[in-house]
């Protein structure tokens, strides 16, 4: 087996131990010091992110973050990647990605109530990419549907850089009573350490180290991918929540990356104790497994508990009821060491701190890529204006990144739990919390083209855009979880991108007052020397204010005013329009003015709270025209609009399809028009009256006498029959 500790790292291990590690110990260090477990290249940057705020109950450091949502309840949430496994074995990779993040949530004592996912693939014109796409969707459905947690939203983007590096990031949110959050710390010397769940097999051995290296031949690594069993996951979920109610559990931790070694050393580390485990007692699926295999296995649906002495029987009764293994495999010690026994023989013993807090931290060299100036340059003179604005909009609506995702989300049970107020297809998903009567909104977002062209603004826009998604359903952003997907951190340009992305994100978080409470870093998204575009994903959670109701997407009735809030600049860099229509991925992405963004968001949210707005749509990919089209064709309403656009001194295509930030399209009934106008003026927010809702087409007269005119049917057809639909399959209309 390979042990990818560098020579320097091996020397550091010898110094920490005062001796050479034996083979098993070396394997422990190799896993725990992997990028995946130690965050050694990312730590220095992550420390600079804002993680505190009034509603934060648990910031980074536990299995997931937690924020107060009122009424004595907290929302517990996190996003996590499962990228490498999803390339190697897409169905199981994606399925176990769902299983893994679910365990992170119920480990905290929270009942998972919503899943979202953020997916990236290469273009679907390639059969391999289509295979990956369909299998990943199927794997997510297979796990989430069975375990009965609704997949309420998500996003999918396609780009060549993901051809050999698909990204699968899964977000889960659970709720718990604030007073009953469970911790993942071991404490109480002498307390029993209990193994629960599925038996340990040989699947997933070295998963963490696999995920910490660039991929070569994917097929050779298939054995490193775990196999998911959602039925077992469901029983483990129910059993853990039920066992927590016995009051006999001191701490619990799921066995994810690096399995038993990671779970035991992290629990010991958090509790500042030692743990002693007899590997011979670990339940197994097959005979003849070496201690190293047992400790590094990433078999799914397993947890480690520390119980109160004497509480074993109560806990065992619960797991027996659910048909799961529950075996005392060790105890908490005061040695500060992770000690592994095989029967009565010690086979490894290392200080817990050496595995965890003493892991190396790297300040890797950073430098902009050579191509950076080239891709940022864009002369608009070389971009001819469209011959037909209607055709351009139709083409955009049918393009891979903007077309309907219905074929995908029809495969996800997004209704189980009977809390889904706004499901997939809305700007953000909204669930009702039965326990408090409040509404929680959540969204995932990230634009990697922006991040490639300018990592700082790309990172900042990911945060701002996620916040706008929440505001578009009438929710106030409260906190976020970040999924940071990047290439090989040993390349200076990747660290440069990473550092700037995080700086931009951190600044946006501070200005918009949305702290980061959990997250995940995935490096080495690189295959055959080709790395991905920098892809930070922001998963943001918001709360509808007490007494308020969420606002559904789409125009609601005819005869309402359509207003563009915010200012449109001549910005086409990095836009979908430039990519789809002019086959160029370049230019400077739209600028984000932090103060302006905060002002616009606050103004729109307060107008929504005042009850003036009937529809709120943020302008994102595809710009104003696509935002308007989405409002028009959003089922079940389907109402057109008659509008006029005067672009002033901005190019007409930039006005319609450019992606200037800090903008929303809103509708307002006539009786509230004056109040809204006065409110926006007082806030110093520019706005433009575009026209009125009504009719069965989107008709826009344009400044130069041209017009854009597409019927609702034409737009719906273009949008619904985009490339996501498998060939030969038609959606029922």
């Amino acid at each position, binding site marked *: 087996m390979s042990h990818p500790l560098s020579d320097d790292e091996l020397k550091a291990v010898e110094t920490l131990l005062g001796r050479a590690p034996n083979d098993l110990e070396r394997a422990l260090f190799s896993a725990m010091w992997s990028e995946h477990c130690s965050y050694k290249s990312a730590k220095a940057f992550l420390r600079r992110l804002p993680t505190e705020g009034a509603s934060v109950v648990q910031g980074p450091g536990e299995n997931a973050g937690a924020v107060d949502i009122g009424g004595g309840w907290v929302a517990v949430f996190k996003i996590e990647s499962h990228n490498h496994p999803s390339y190697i074995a897409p169905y199981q990779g994606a399925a176990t990605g769902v299983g893994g993040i679910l365990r992170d949530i119920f480990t905290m004592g929270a009942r998972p109530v919503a899943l979202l996912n953020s997916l990236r693939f290469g273009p679907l014109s390639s059969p391999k990419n289509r295979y990956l796409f369909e299998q990943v969707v*199927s794997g997510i*459905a297979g796990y989430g*549907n*069975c*375990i*009965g947690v609704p997949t309420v939203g998500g996003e999918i983007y396609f780009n060549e850089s993901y051809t050999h590096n698909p990204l699968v990031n899964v977000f889960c949110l659970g709720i718990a009573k604030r007073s009953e959050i469970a911790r993942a710390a071991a404490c109480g010397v002498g307390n029993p350490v209990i193994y629960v769940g599925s038996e340990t097999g040989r699947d997933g051995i070295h998963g963490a180290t696999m995920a910490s290296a660039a991929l070569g031949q994917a097929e050779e690594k298939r054995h490193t991918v775990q196999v998911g*069993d*959602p*039925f*077992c996951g*469901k*029983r483990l979920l*129910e059993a853990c929540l039920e066992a927590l109610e016995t009051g006999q559990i001191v701490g619990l931790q799921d066995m994810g990356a690096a399995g038993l070694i990671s779970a035991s050393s992290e629990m010991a580390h958090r509790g500042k104790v030692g743990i002693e485990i007899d590997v011979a007692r670990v339940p197994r699926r097959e005979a003849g497994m070496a201690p190293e295999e047992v400790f590094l296995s990433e078999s799914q649906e397993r947890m480690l508990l520390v119980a109160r002495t004497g509480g074993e029987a109560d806990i065992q009764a619960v797991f027996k*009821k*659910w*048909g799961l293994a529950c075996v005392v495999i060790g105890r908490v010690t005061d040695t500060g060491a992770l000690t592994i026994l095989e029967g009565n023989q010690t086979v490894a013993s290392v200080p817990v701190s050496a595995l965890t807090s003493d892991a190396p931290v790297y300040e890797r060299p950073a430098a902009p890529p050579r191509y950076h100036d080239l891709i940022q340059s864009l002369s608009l003179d070389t971009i001819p204006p469209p011959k037909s604005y209607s055709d351009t909009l139709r083409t955009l609506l049918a393009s891979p990144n903007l077309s309907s995702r219905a074929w995908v*989300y*029809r*495969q*996800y*049970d*997004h*209704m*189980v*739990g*009977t*809390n*889904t*107020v706004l499901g997939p297809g809305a700007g953000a998903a909204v669930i*009702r919390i*039965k326990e408090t009567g409040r509404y929680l909104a959540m969204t995932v977002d990230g634009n990697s083209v922006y991040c490639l062209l300018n990592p700082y603004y790309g990172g900042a826009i990911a945060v701002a855009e996620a916040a706008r998604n929440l505001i578009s359903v009438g929710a106030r952003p409260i906190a976020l979880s970040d999924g940071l997907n990047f290439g090989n951190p040993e390349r200076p340009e990747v660290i440069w991108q990473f550092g700037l992305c995080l700086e931009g994100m951190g600044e946006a978080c501070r200005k918009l007052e949305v702290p980061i409470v959990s997250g995940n870093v995935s490096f080495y998204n690189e295959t055959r020397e080709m790395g991905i575009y920098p892809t930070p994903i922001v998963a943001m959670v918001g709360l509808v204010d007490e007494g308020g109701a969420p606002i559904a997407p789409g125009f609601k009735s005819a005869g309402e005013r359509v207003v563009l809030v915010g200012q449109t600049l001549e910005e086409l860099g990095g836009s979908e329009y430039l990519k789809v229509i002019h086959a160029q991925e370049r230019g400077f992405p739209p600028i984000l003015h932090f103060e302006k963004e905060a002002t616009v968001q606050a103004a729109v949210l307060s107008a929504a709270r005042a009850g003036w707005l009937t529809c709120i749509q943020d302008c994102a990919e595809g710009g104003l025209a696509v935002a308007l089209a989405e409002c028009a064709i959003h089922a079940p309403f389907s109402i057109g609009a008659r509008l006029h656009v005067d672009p002033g001194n901005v190019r007409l295509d930039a006005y319609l399809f450019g992606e200037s930030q800090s903008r929303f399209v809103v509708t307002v009934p006539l009786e509230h028009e004056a109040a809204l106008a006065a409110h926006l003026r007082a806030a110093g927010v520019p706005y433009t009256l575009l026209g009125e809702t009504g009719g069965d087409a989107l008709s826009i007269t344009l400044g130069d006498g041209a017009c854009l005119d597409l019927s609702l049917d034409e737009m719906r057809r273009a949008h619904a029959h985009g490339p996501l639909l498998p060939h030969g*399959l038609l959606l*029922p*209309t």
Partner: protein
Amino acid sequence: MRFGIVVFPGSNCDRDCHDVTTRLLGQPTTLIWHRETALPGVDAVILPGGFSYGDYLRAGAIARFSPVMKAVAGFAERGGLVIGICNGFQILVEAGLLPGAFRRNRGLTFICAPTSVRVENSDTPFTACYAVGQVLSLPIAHAEGNYYVDEVDLVQLRAQRQILFRYCDASGALDVAANPNGAVDHIAGICNVTRNVLGIMPHPERASDPLLGGIDGIPLFQSLIGNGSSLCLIP
């Protein structure tokens, strides 16, 4: 009316059904673990949706061996009211309490979407609060909802008016395109000959809370509570 909701280890709509019978309809409700062997004091039993045993084999094929199923069969035989929703319907078929079998959906994928369903017979304890021909919007969420019976059984189902719900388009017309999973004769729900056991693939419990966009499922529960009488609180 006291409801009993059976909980198999992989049930996942048990809590949703419980929410409808208790919070929305104010009826006493007991959750019954699948290892139980009796159904004391229960007036109607719900087998909820989910993946009772993971359903890696045929859906419901293992659940029918759960101890509670003997009690459910006895309860049904004595005329007790039994509803199987989605996976519950699959289990009732596997247990032989309803005829037929389920195949993978025509499109071979899981489908979660609203469907239009037509009420075919209001002369049962499950449909008394509906009108014949009424078109309901009820969501489905399944991968194996493609109901099958052979010709002989289908003739019987029709003759005995056991087909209670059929997939249709928004206007109530039976149409291949409006049949989401390929079910024989557009069947979405049937009852047994004695009309005390119902199997329905769409989820009435997901169309019960006005907050979630529709309440077409509520009259099904109300039909039961009134036991065929005219207690119809919500039209």
